[in-house]
């Protein structure tokens, strides 16, 4: 399998950065299922598979495009649910998304512009 060039984002990663930025603008951060639902709503597709979603989120966190932290136990307990892992798009992620929008307008231009 050919190796991916450094700095080149996959369509899935661009979609995650795009949808994640939108959610982040509204709520300050986003979590896995919320992101999957937003992406499905955006393009009318099925919910992203567990493995695909969390593998991509992990890879993007390692690459510095996203940062994450676990929600405080107290707030999850108060809401009566398991703790969420909250993600945020980093400055590097925003820059990568902007660069991709500039370089390849066709796939991203069809989605909402979220980076001012």
């Amino acid at each position, binding site marked *: 399998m050919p190796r991916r060039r450094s700095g080149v984002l996959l369509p899935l990663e661009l979609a995650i950065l795009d949808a994640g930025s939108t959610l982040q603008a509204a709520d300050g951060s986003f979590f*896995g299922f919320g992101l999957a639902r937003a992406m499905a709503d955006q393009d009318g597709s099925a919910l992203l598979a*567990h*493995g695909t*979603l969390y*593998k991509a989120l992990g890879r993007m966190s390692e690459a510095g495009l996203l940062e994450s932290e676990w929600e405080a136990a107290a707030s999850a*307990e108060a809401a009566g649910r398991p703790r*969420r892992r909250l993600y945020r798009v980093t400055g590097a992620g925003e820059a990568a998304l902007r660069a991709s929008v500039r370089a390849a307008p066709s796939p991203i231009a069809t989605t909402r512009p979220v980076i001012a």
Partner: protein
Amino acid sequence: MSVESSGHFHRAARDVLRWTMTYTRGLDAGIAARRQDEIASDLHEHAVWAGDAGVSPRRLAWSIRLRAVRGAPADLIWRSNVLRQADPGVRLVLRADAALLAVVAMIGVLDVALGAFVLFRLVRALVIGDVHSIPGPALGSIILGLIALLALVAMVGERQRAWAAFTLAVPAGLILAETGRALYFLSASAVVLVNRIPWWEPATYAVGAALALACVAAAIHWLRLPTKNRAGRPATVHREGDPRA
């Protein structure tokens, strides 16, 4: 009853958590726990959303299972990537364990196949009138194949894997010789072969003993593994009002 507390959701979520436990087994405890917690959170959020959106429990369960199945290749690639970054000693132990499991499973499949083949030949011989009663060795071979099948099924669960391997040692040791004797009654080619090769019986016992030894060695290895490594964290689905923080 809400979607979150429905049996459909709980069964689907339990299956997904079991799968998560499977592909995170043997990984660094922190990495494995983070993935398990993230999936547990996803399942809960999915159910809450489904409840709000008026999705039926059956449809929710279907959607959850579909997401898990579609993501399974990515899960395995993720595991492989995590293992690549792991300590070489840990990698070696996991690979050795997987190889041992593959060997024992292959022995089990071989035993089941032999038992099934004898059963097929027996039915055929009875139908066409080659034999009028069931030869003892054929019955023995079929029973040994059945024991191997039960042992194979039991090996899927990690907790009973060692005892399943011990059990499999019995058919592994005996079924080759028993099948040879059974085919003597059921196959003309086998009669020729048995008469031409006088040492076939000791040879089948020798090969059988080697296979049985492999099963016993695997069983001892799995018995000596710490229980924590074998069982992992219990996969649980928390019901409404039972926060998992």
